[in-house]
């Protein structure tokens, strides 16, 4: 169905007795920001890797706007920046654009570098970047390929709290700019509440969805607001139980 990212009966087993995933059913709205939260080892990353084509599911169907996910639709941001240390910021951002004609590539790179606010660092090497800047480069690299589906695997968890909040704002800017479907994994409830229109809670193994929320909070979401706290309490209730 258009407008939906549908996952039906997804199973992934890595040889152990208990599958890491599934069978897992989940429907997310496309063009929105969705968060998947859950404790470590519940299969969140494996779910994301199946969506990103890095793992082949053993069973199940994934459809994106009514069709299978095409490789060109997806881009992934990992927990670590994973930049190529021998490439400049601009070179790293251009990493996925090898097939794009040079002039167009440069324009696309310049544009996303602008969106993540790294104009002054374009010629720097990764070793000269702070953790937050490096992760912004990783975000820009993912955006440069113009993905319809942007997957983020705990992208800000290694950053300090202030940088993390700044990065969350960057992600919302990016989302408003390009309107991709964003699915991000987090173990941070505040992060999920600050960003996502749809929050799903996973438990496992075997990984499955145990709760879904659609917080009706308007952007920008004030973390200190009473409504925010009310949603937070509901999430804690589910995760704690």
């Amino acid at each position: 169905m258009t407008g939906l990212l549908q996952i039906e009966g997804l199973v992934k087993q890595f040889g152990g007795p208990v599958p890491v995933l599934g069978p897992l059913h989940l429907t997310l709205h496309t063009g929105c920001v969705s968060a998947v939260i859950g404790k470590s080892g519940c299969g969140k990353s494996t779910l994301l890797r199946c969506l990103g084509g890095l793992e082949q599911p053993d069973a199940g169907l994934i459809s994106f706007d009514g069709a299978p996910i095409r490789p060109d639709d997806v881009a992934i941001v990992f927990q670590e920046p994973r930049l190529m240390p021998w490439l400049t910021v601009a070179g790293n951002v251009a990493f996925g654009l090898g097939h794009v004609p040079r002039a167009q590539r440069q324009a696309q790179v310049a544009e996303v570098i602008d969106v993540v606010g790294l104009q002054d660092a374009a010629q720097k090497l990764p070793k000269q970047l702070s953790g937050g800047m490096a992760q912004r480069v990783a975000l820009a690299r993912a955006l440069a390929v113009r993905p319809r589906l942007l997957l983020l695997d705990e992208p800000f968890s290694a950053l300090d709290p202030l940088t993390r909040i700044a990065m969350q704002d960057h992600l919302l800017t990016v989302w408003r700019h390009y309107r991709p479907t964003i699915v991000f994994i987090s173990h941070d409830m505040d992060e999920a509440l600050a960003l996502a229109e749809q929050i799903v809670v996973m438990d496992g193994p075997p990984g499955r969805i145990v709760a879904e929320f659609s917080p009706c909070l308007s952007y920008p979401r004030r973390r200190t607001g009473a409504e925010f706290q009310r949603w937070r309490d509901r999430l804690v209730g589910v995760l704690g139980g």
Partner: protein
Amino acid sequence: MRPRALGLILPLALIGGWDLICRAGWVGENLLPSPGRVASTIYQLAASGELWVHLSATGGRMAAGFALGVLAGTIAGALTGASSLLRAIIDPTIQGLRSVPSIAWVPLFILWLGIFELSKVMLIAVGVFFPVYLNLMLGIAHVDRKLIEVGRAHRLGRIELVRRVLLPAALPSYMTGLRSGLGLGWMFVVAAELMGASEGLGFLLVDGQQTGRPAIVIAAILLFALLGKLSDLGLAGIGRVVLAWQDTDRVTM
């Protein structure tokens, strides 16, 4: 004082001590000529033009052998590093050959390739090959899995993955291999020239020994030290440029 200047203290002190020993007459001039004698021997060799003949002979062999060894080591290392199947097929054999002492090849190379240049160049190439091969293979095989995954996430093909991720990531290890290969190459050039040559620094060594002129022998040894150090400095300089992205402060590079 700068570290580079610090490195000169010890050799200068050694030369000073050496000169002292000679002046005091503790060791006979027929065994240990003074630094001045060695310097004037080198000067005479240079003045007669003989020095350049020997230097270019040794340098030419070394360059040809190094180029050949690097070429073969790079191809074999890249293939076995990038493909675990090829590694399983090829690597055990190469590792076996690696444990053959270098001098053991000499008779075979002379039988096969004659006593002239080709056998010498091949011997040097063999010496250079192994460290280049080994370091490149291990460098590629140990590339961070997470970087490879970025390549996969961007759907790079096999060749593209090798070219854009594996080879650049393995470059530090490759540079180490080149430098060890160069060092071994200098060892093998001596072995090659000792086995029979009419020119080259190795020939000077043999000639000096057979004609009882220790100054010539010591001059040849010092020239080897100089050539070895200069070529390594050159390679290290190239390494500093192409590895400028490395997040290390390794002073040895």
